[in-house]
């Protein structure tokens, strides 16, 4: 596995002089499935936005495939996709098809190529029959899938998820986790920021715990699961009952 992302002493201070993240250093290897765990306000979303090139660092640097993130920001955004917490405010298109085509249109791909890629992405995610639907009429789970399709069509190496399971019922969360696992098996590196680790921990290969803008722990989920509550993250129920880690995926 090669180093895909290297974050070196990254610090972000907001305009009101509050720290978003402080002195963050870690690296991500290709094919990893990482949980970025932390309570609200711990700096998870700020870190994700840095990895996607949406924020500029106050100090420190991020290297993507050994190149500074600022070097080719469009290429970085294509390579590292981000699925936001609120799918409703992420969806731009008036139909499911248009929504998925939005990214490739920004990259000025040929129309034939766009149509081909959009169709294959919709097929992969089981959204083909919804292609002409207005996104506003989709269910929560379908909207989340559509948000993923909008990123996936640009063929990213990494997908960042910000609280992907919020507001989803059990079947939708379970389907979504299966899809994310499938994407990871297809070679896409996954980073999920969440405070609710129970749904995803069975599939993760690594867990980074953040608190107060710092990385406090970084390791294998099995080894960290018992100490999560020190950082305001609820330990999964099955672990508390010594039943091991339960898989939420289908």
């Amino acid at each position, binding site marked *: 596995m090669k180093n895909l992302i290297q974050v070196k002493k990254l610090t972000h201070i907001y305009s009101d002089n509050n720290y978003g993240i402080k002195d963050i250093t870690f690296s991500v290897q290709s094919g990893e499935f990482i949980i970025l765990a932390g309570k609200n306000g711990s700096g998870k979303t700020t870190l994700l936005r840095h990895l996607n090139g949406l924020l500029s660092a106050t100090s420190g640097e991020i290297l993507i495939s050994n190149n500074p993130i600022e070097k080719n920001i469009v290429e970085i955004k294509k390579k590292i996709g981000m699925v936001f917490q609120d799918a409703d405010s992420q969806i731009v298109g008036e139909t499911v098809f248009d929504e998925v085509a939005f990214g*490739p249109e920004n990259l*000025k*791909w040929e129309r034939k190529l*766009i149509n081909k890629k959009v169709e294959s992405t919709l097929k992969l995610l089981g959204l083909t029959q919804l292609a002409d639907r207005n996104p506003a009429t989709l269910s929560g789970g379908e909207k989340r899938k559509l948000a993923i399709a909008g990123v996936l069509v640009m063929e990213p190496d990494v997908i960042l998820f910000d609280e992907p399971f919020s507001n989803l019922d059990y079947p939708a969360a379970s389907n979504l986790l299966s899809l994310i696992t499938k994407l990871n098996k297809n070679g896409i590196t996954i980073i999920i920021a969440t405070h609710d680790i129970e749904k995803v921990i069975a599939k993760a290969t690594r867990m980074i715990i953040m608190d107060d803008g710092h990385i406090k722990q970084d390791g294998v989920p099995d080894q960290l699961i018992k100490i999560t509550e020190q950082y305001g993250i609820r330990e999964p129920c099955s672990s508390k009952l010594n039943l091991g880690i339960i898989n939420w995926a289908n």
Partner: protein
Amino acid sequence: MTPFIYKQGSSILHNLDTRYKFVIMCLISMGILKALFPALAIISIVLIAAMLSVGIKPLNSFNHIKYFLILLIFIFISRALTTPGEPLFSVFEVPVSNSGIKDGALVSIRFLIIMLLGMIFSHTTKPSSIKSAAEWFLKPIPFIPEKRASLMIGLSIRFLPLIIEQAKQVSDAQKARCSDNQKNPVRKIARLILPILKKTFQTADNLALAMESRCFSEDRTDPEFNKSGYEIISLILTILLVLILILF
């Protein structure tokens, strides 16, 4: 479901290139503004046939424009009362002339037909195609960034229902805390508008970030237009129809 919302279909009108549909709609609208009663009867028959062919039930559609019909009644009454001519009878000592009634009816029917025309257009045209056609028409006009304008049209179509939904949520949340007891309408509106504006700006902020994360650029792939093969014949028939509207 309101007939003003696009509904998937396979009729000729559904498949017609949106740019032609725009031109056809503009030509017919201009013809209607010049048309008299016999011509209006002809265009009404054509429009009712078009409504049936695209799956709109004409009688049912009136239910969706009932408030507009009230407006038309006001227009009719005001025209009837204010157009000079030989008095036919008087209402509260205001004379109503024969030409006033004719003029009021003519204007109201013209507006009604244009409204039905718009209904057929929006029922058979995808919002994304409307956006693309607007971009195409704006392209030759200097100093107008057509891609930005079309994106703004698209975002308005996409986010208006979301803002209305958010407004309803805020209103319900306030009603749940007895906001109905507040009788002052200005205070009531102020209390409603501030949280709605806050939510709308937050949504706009999130949207801008999401667009940026997907490499948003104004230099984008041009829109695609699908042709059905009926465009030229439809345009010729429309010109003939408009000539009939103007001449009769």
